[in-house]
């Protein structure tokens, strides 16, 4: 049971990192990015081919992979992250040329499907359908931990990485750069009229999301010790998007809560139908249907998500002449309107 909890928490931490990346392109920039899982896969594959030794295809197992540099864990993860960011930069350059949301959705979807097709079909690029496997537990050659101890260690590592990703992204979110991204999302014409280069901002935001995805993917591959085209599909991306929608667009804490809720709640819900789960193919289908229905219901009844996006708040009293009327006017206004979530009653803050 304890081991099960450790597994759930490790996968949960990695999922949280992944959803933070989705949140950059979907939440901050408002882009319909469907290639996200491709960057996760790129990070996973990149980390593996950097860490693994050279492939030795045997006659019985003809599949092989490129590189095989036998690098240590940490530089591999960092380089994999950079590769994911670079890949997003390339895709973004094509997809964002026409500054229309529709195009981005279609081109990213096509990119993702094409990369899946190529990696699955080509047996000598990244192992084809079988994928890559046989990675040694990272860092354990120096740590020499037993299976239980190692699982605790890797959980700790994932939580540390999650914290790191969270802090880095929060810092960027609060910076002028993050604010510019949200201005582009809210009204791009006005953002351009106030000196924002729409293409560059969108591209940078897109690449940042891709890099975070690749980072999470590298950690995931190092946890699973194997990766293949079936490890990651549009279904998983839908669940991540569901996490963003349920948790609250652009709110880092909200999306983490949302994704953890969805990833941990869905398997439990499908187990409530013992009759259905006896059929192994139906369980995942029920989970997907519930996840997708959850997105629709959430969009309908709570469009802002569980936690509202945080806005900059000024808590200084302001000029002396105005002090008496400030609290009454600024905090008591009801914030119900179409298109924006009502959020929780919790006051959101972001003080400088």
């Amino acid at each position, binding site marked *: 049971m304890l081991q099960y909890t450790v597994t759930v928490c490790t996968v949960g931490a990695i999922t949280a990192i992944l959803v933070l990346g989705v949140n950059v392109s*979907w939440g901050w920039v*408002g882009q*319909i990015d*469907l290639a996200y899982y491709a960057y996760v896969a790129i990070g996973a594959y990149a980390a593996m081919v950097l860490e693994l030794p050279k492939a030795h295809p045997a006659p019985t197992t003809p599949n092989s992979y490129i590189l095989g540099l036998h690098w240590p864990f940490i530089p591999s993860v960092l380089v994999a992250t950079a590769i994911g960011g670079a890949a997003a930069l390339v895709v973004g350059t*094509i997809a964002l*040329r*026409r*500054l*229309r*949301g*529709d*195009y981005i*959705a*279609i*081109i990213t*979807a*096509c*990119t993702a*499907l*094409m990369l899946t*097709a*190529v990696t*699955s*079909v080509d047996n000598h690029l990244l192992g084809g359908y079988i994928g890559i496997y046989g990675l040694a537990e990272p860092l354990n050659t120096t740590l020499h931990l037993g299976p239980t101890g190692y699982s605790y260690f890797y959980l700790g590592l994932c939580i540390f990485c999650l914290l790191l990703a969270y802090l880095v992204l929060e810092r960027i979110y609060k910076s002028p750069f993050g604010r510019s991204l949200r201005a582009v999302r809210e009204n*791009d*014409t006005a953002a351009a009229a106030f000196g924002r280069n729409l293409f560059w901002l969108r591209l940078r935001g897109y690449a940042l999301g891709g890099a975070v995805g690749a980072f999470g993917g590298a950690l995931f591959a190092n946890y699973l010790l194997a990766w293949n085209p079936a490890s990651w599909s549009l*279904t998983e991306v*839908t669940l991540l*998007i569901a996490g963003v*929608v349920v948790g609250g667009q652009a709110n880092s804490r909200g999306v983490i809560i949302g994704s953890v809720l969805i990833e941990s709640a869905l398997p439990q819900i499908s187990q409530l139908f013992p009759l259905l789960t006896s059929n192994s*193919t*139906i369980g995942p*289908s*029920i989970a*997907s*249907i519930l*996840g*997708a*229905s959850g*997105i*629709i219901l959430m*969009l*309908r009844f709570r*469009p802002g998500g569980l936690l509202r996006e945080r806005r900059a708040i000024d808590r200084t009293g302001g000029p002396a002449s105005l002090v008496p009327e400030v609290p009454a006017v600024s905090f008591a206004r009801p914030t119900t309107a*179409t*298109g924006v979530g009502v959020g929780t009653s919790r006051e959101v803050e972001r003080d400088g």
Partner: protein
Amino acid sequence: MLGVGFGLVTASIVALSTVAMSLQFSVTRTINFAHGELMTVGAYAAFLVAKSTSDLPLQAVAAMAAGAALGWVLNVALFQPFVQRNATKLVIFVLSVAASFIIQNVLQIGFGGSYVDYQAGSTTAYNVGPFQWTAMDIVTMAVAVVVLVALHLTIRRTKFGRAQRAVADDVLLARTTGVGAKRIIALTWLLDGAIAGLAGMLLAAQVGSFTPTLGFGYLLVIFSAAIVGGIGQMYGAMLGALVIGLVMEVSAVYVNPSYKESMAFLILVAVLLFRPQGIVTALSESNT
């Protein structure tokens, strides 16, 4: 030449589906990620009817009815309530992605995830000029031509077509000038679903066996054709479908056929890099 022959058949199917999507997009301005599922339900409807009768027209009617019904449901139950609340494009798009997943998984539960066989029409081969086609290939192309011509006449010559173009130009304006925009949009979804369902049946007949991801797997091709032609452009969509269909099948002769769909995407990238407005100049530069 074998490649070109196959290409024309593929192009016919792609053209039907792409034109349906373009028509729907130009009128509703909604990118429907569940478009592939319209094709899939069409294919399954034809598959079910084929169990009791080998009558092709009856199967086609079933495919069109299933597609139209799904299109209508998507509009009424899913998109309209949100459009009326002024939902953003992002929200509408997420809805269609969610719908696509729900439909695929419902089909998965109903029919299972494994391939079902669907044989339609005769497989007798005929030599027509340099091409070699089966009877079903010829039927497919003929159906595509008839449907596209009928659609052209509907849009250019009928009151419904004029109203549809009015809505496509400006929903608000159409509403104020008395065109029943809501009714036109509903009818457009019906039409979109019917044509896509028919395309799904023809596609299933071509590939011989399929799964609940039939249409979804074809979405890339449809999107590519739509963008190559200039999105929202009906005639561009036909041209885009022709280009994509030919390139896919001709390339399959020379490179690994598994890359067929990826070829469609390469064309798409090339067009976006060198002629981003599509082959046929886009209707309008509406900003997001």
